[in-house]
C-alpha cells in the first residue's frame, strides 16, 4: 500500500507556494494538489483502502492539510490580484484610442434623408443631365424667350451654341413627363448652377430637390399635407407650413412656402427676424402649358410641383453659416458629419 507522508507534503506545498510568482504559477500549484491527479486528490482516493483506525487519523490530518493549502493559495492570490499603482494599474480617465473614421459629405446625408422620406410616401427618385438646352430649362417650363421672367434665373451659358447649365432640377420633370403618363409621383435631386455673386448664402452651384405629384384630384391641400409631413420628419419635430402667393412661370397658382421657425417654433426670435416663419421654398400647381409641352392632357390631370434648396436645408439642420463650406473640401468641416 502506498504511503503518504503528509508532513512532507506540507513542506513541499509551502515551498512551491513560496516560489509562485504570479496567478498562473499559483494556478499550477492549485492543480498539482487539487487536480484530477493532484496530490491531495490522490491522498483522498487512498482513504477507502485504509483500516478503520488509520482512516480516522489520516482523514483528519489530510483535511487539515487540505484547508491549509487552500488558505495559503487564497492568501497568495489576494496579494497577486491587489492593484498596485504604477505596476499593473491603468488610467481609465485617459482618452480612448482615436480611430480614423471616414465621413460622408453633409449634403449626401441630407439628400439621403430627403429621399428616404419621399420614398416612404411613394415618390420615385429620377435624375437628369446637368447640361440642358433652353427648351427643357425654360421653354417647356413656360418661361418664354426674351421675357424678364428668365432674369429670375441667372444662367451659365456654354461658349459655343445655346446650351446652358441647368438652373434648377425642374427640367427633369419635363424629361420624365415626356416618357411617363400620369399618375406621377417623383422627386429629382441634383446639382444646379446659378451665375451670381457668391456670399455666405449664395454659391455658383448648389443642390435642388424637385418634386412632382400629378393625379386626377391632387390639390393645394394635398401639397400642404405632403410637405408638412416632409419637414416634420426631416427636422424631427412638428413643423407647420404656410403658403404665400408667388410667381413661377411653370406653376399656377404659385407659392412661396414658409415653415414655422425651428428655433422658436413660431413665437418669433432673431433667427426668423421675429416673424415666426422661415422662407424655405417655392411651389405651386403645375401650369397647363407645362403639361401641354409634354403632351399630357391638362384638362384631365392636375398636381403640384415644388423645389427645395438642399444646401439651405442642410444649413438649417446643422446650423451651418456659410454655403461655401460645402464645396471647400475643408476637412475641419467635413469630419464633423
Amino acid at each position: 500500500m502506498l504511503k503518504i507522508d503528509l508532513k512532507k507534503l506540507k513542506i513541499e506545498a509551502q515551498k512551491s507556494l513560496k516560489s509562485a510568482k504570479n496567478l498562473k504559477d499559483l494556478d499550477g500549484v492549485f492543480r498539482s494538489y487539487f487536480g484530477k491527479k493532484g496530490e491531495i486528490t490522490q491522498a483522498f482516493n487512498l482513504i477507502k483502502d485504509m483500516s478503520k483506525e488509520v482512516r480516522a487519523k489520516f482523514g483528519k490530518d489530510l483535511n487539515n492539510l487540505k484547508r491549509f493549502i487552500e488558505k495559503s493559495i487564497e492568501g497568495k492570490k489576494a496579494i497577486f490580484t491587489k492593484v498596485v499603482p504604477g505596476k499593473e494599474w491603468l488610467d481609465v480617465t485617459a482618452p480612448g484610442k482615436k480611430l480614423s473614421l471616414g465621413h460622408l459629405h453633409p449634403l449626401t446625408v441630407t439628400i439621403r434623408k430627403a429621399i428616404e422620406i419621399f420614398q416612404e410616401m411613394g415618390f420615385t427618385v429620377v435624375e437628369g443631365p446637368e447640361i440642358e438646352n433652353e427648351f427643357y430649362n425654360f421653354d417647356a417650363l413656360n418661361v418664354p424667350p426674351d421675357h424678364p421672367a428668365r432674369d429670375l434665373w441667372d444662367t451659365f451659358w456654354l461658349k459655343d451654341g445655346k446650351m446652358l447649365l441647368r438652373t434648377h432640377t425642374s427640367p427633369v420633370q419635363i424629361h420624365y413627363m415626356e416618357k411617363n403618363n400620369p399618375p406621377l409621383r417623383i422627386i429629382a435631386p441634383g446639382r444646379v448652377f446659378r451665375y451670381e455673386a457668391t456670399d455666405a448664402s449664395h454659391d455658383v452651384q448648389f443642390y435642388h430637390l424637385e418634386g412632382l405629384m400629378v393625379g386626377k384630384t391632387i390639390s393645394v391641400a394635398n401639397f400642404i399635407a405632403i410637405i408638412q409631413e416632409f419637414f416634420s420628419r426631416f427636422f424631427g419635430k412638428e413643423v407647420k407650413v404656410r403658403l404665400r402667393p408667388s410667381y413661377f412661370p411653370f406653376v399656377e397658382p404659385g407659392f412661396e412656402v414658409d415653415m414655422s421657425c425651428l428655433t422658436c417654433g413660431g413665437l418669433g426670435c432673431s433667427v426668423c427676424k421675429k416673424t415666426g416663419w422661415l422662407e424655405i421654398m417655392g411651389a405651386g400647381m403645375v401650369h397647363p402649358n407645362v403639361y401641354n409641352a409634354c403632351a399630357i392632357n391638362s384638362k384631365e390631370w392636375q398636381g403640384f410641383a415644388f423645389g427645395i434648396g438642399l444646401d439651405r436645408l442642410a444649413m438649417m439642420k446643422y446650423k451651418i453659416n456659410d454655403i461655401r463650406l460645402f464645396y471647400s473640401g475643408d476637412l475641419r468641416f467635413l469630419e464633423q458629419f
Partner: protein
Amino acid sequence: MKFSYNWLQSFFKEKLPKPEKLADILTMHSFEVESVVKKGNDFILDIDILPNRSQDCFSYQGLAREVGALLNKKPKKLEQEKLLVEKGGLEPVKIEVRSSSIIPRYTAILIEGIKIKKSPDWLKNNLEAVGIRSINNIVDLTNWIMLETGQPLHAFDYDKIFGKKMVVRMARAGERVITLDEKTHKLDDGAIIIEDQERLIDLAGIMGGKVSEVTNETKSIILQAANFDRRSIYITAKKLNQKTQASDIYSQGVDPNLTKPALERAYFLLNKLGGGKIRQVVDIYPKKIKSRKIKINIGYFSSLLGREIPVKRITDILESLEFKVKQIKSDLIVEIPTFRADINLGEDLVEEVGRVYGYEAIKPFFPVSSLIPPKRNINLFWENKAKDALKEAGFNEVYNYSFFGDKEAESFGYNPQELIEIKNPANIEQKYLRATLIPNLLKNVQKNQDLNFKEISIFELGKIFIKKGLAEKRMLSGLVSTIQNKKNEGFYEVKGVVETLLNKLGVADVWYDEFKATPEDTKNTIWNRKKCAEIKSSQEEIGFLGEITQTIRKKLEVPENVFVFDLDFEKLSKLASEEQEYRPISQYPSAIRDLAILVPQNVKVDDVLNIMEQAGGKLVIDIDLFDMYEGENLPDGKKNLAFHIIYQAEDRTLKSNEINKLHQKIVKALEKNPEWEVRC
C-alpha cells in the same frame, strides 16, 4: 418698388390699416413687403411686386385696386381732364408710326404755353419720398403719372423737333442716339427710335434723346404716352445695359388702353402746375385690344385648391378685382380687364380667388391615390454602396466645384479646344467644366495640408463633362496623401481600397495591368508610368490608380506621396452585382506555412503567385503576401517576398507530410527559375 403709405391712403376715403398691418396683409395675399420704414410723417413700404403683376401693380392706381380687393374697400377714381383741342397757335407735328406690331399704340398731345418751374411741394415731396429726384414741373409730372398709373410718359421740347415731323420706327443697325444721360448708344435693328426730319430724338421706351430734352427755356411740349412691344424694349435695354424704370415697366408689357387715361390725368394735373393749351391730339391705335373672357367650371376652384369656397364668395372676389362675372349653370364666364394681361386661364382665376380668400384657410389632407410602389433607382443604389464602402475604409467625401481653370487644364495636358468652356464664367478659376475630378481633389490636399492635416484620404463621386457630344459621366475618384511613403505604401494602400471597393460592389474578374494602353478618358500624361496600374474587369478598362507625375505635382503645388484612383462609375455600376453566395466553411482545420523567396526586382508578384497557385492546386485555399522588402542586407537588384500559404481540404484533416509534400512542390516550381531563390 417703394410705395408711400400716405400716397396710397389718398386713394381711400376710409383709413387704411396701420402700415405694419397692411404690410402683413399684402405679404399673405399679394406681394411680399420687404420693409416698412418711417420717413417723416409717412411710411415707405418696399413691396416686391411679382414679375407677372408689374403690369398692373407697378403703380399706385394698381396697388390701390389690389388693396381695395383685399380690404373690401373701393378705391377712388383718379380725376381726369378731357383732351380738348383749342384751335390756332402752333403748327401741328406730323407723326408717323411705321410698325403697328412693334408700336401698338401711339398717343401724344401738343401743349403750348407751358412754364417750366420748380414743382410744388406735394409733387416734389411725394416723388422724393420714393427716391425720385425732383427736376422741374414737367419732368416731375411725367414721373408722377408713371408712378400713379403705370403708363410711362415722355415730354419732348416742341421747338427742338426739326421739320415738325416725328417718325416712330425700328432702328437701322449702326444708327446712333445720344440719351439724356449724355451716353451715345450704337443701336442694332431691334431698338425702337423716334426721328425728326434730321436726326434721332428718342430711344423709345428707354430714355429720351438729349437733343429734344425739356429745359428751362422750353415753351411747348409734345407729351407722349406710347405703347411699345415689350420684347423689343426688354432686349434693347438689356443689350445696351440701359435700364430705367420706364424700360422695366415696358419690358413687362403695358396695357395699350392706358395711354389715353394717363394723358387725361396728366392734363388734369398740368392745369394745377401752370397749365397750357392743347393744340393737337394724336392717337394711332389701329388694332384695339379688347377684354377677354374665360369660362371656368365652378367646381374647379375647390378641386384645385382642396377647399370648398361658396360661389358667392368666388364672384365677390373676382368682382373686387374689377373682373366681370356671369354665371351660366355650373360655369362662370369671367371677363378680364385689359390691364390684367397675366390672367389667361382658369388656373389664373383659381389663384386670384385662392390668394384673396387666403391660403391659410386651406386645411391640409393627404392625397387619395392608388398604391403604386416607387421604382427603385439603381444608379443611386450603387452610388450609396460605393460611398459607404469608401467611408468604411476611412475616406472623407468631398464635393468640389464642377469647374476648373486654365492652370488645371494646362497642368493636365488639356487643350482648351477639348474642354467645354463657359461663356460667362463666375471667375477665371471656373472657366471650364471639369473633365476630370482629380485637379480639384489635389487642391483639397494642398488646402488641408496647410491646415495641418498629415494623412488625407478623400474621394468624390461626381460628374465630369466631355466636349464630344456634351456628354456627362459619373466618376469616382479619390486619393491618399501621406507624409511618409516607405516601400510605396501609399500605392498599395490605394490599391487595397480599390480592391475592397470593387469587392463590395460585386465587380468580378478584377485585375491590374501595367500601364500600356492609351486610356480613353483619363489623360495618360498625368500618371507616373512606373507607379501606375490600369484597373480592369475581364477585358474592360474601368479606371486607373497610381502616382501622378512630378510635373503636375509641382505645377499644382501638391506635396509628394499622393496616390490617386480614378474610376469610371458608369462602367462600375454596370458591372456591379448584388449576387452573392455563401461558401461553406470547411469543418477541417487549415494549416499555414510561410515561404520567402528572393527574386529580381522586376519580377511581378502576380507571376510568383500564379506559379504558386498552379503548383499548389485546390488544397491551397489562400496565399497572402505579408512582406515585400528590398534594400539593406539583400543582394543588389533583388527583392524578398514573404507569403503565408494556407492549406486546407474540404473533406479531411490534412496530414503534415501531405502538406510538406505540397509545399516542396511549390518550392520546386518556383526554383525552376534559376534567378529565384526560396529562402525557407
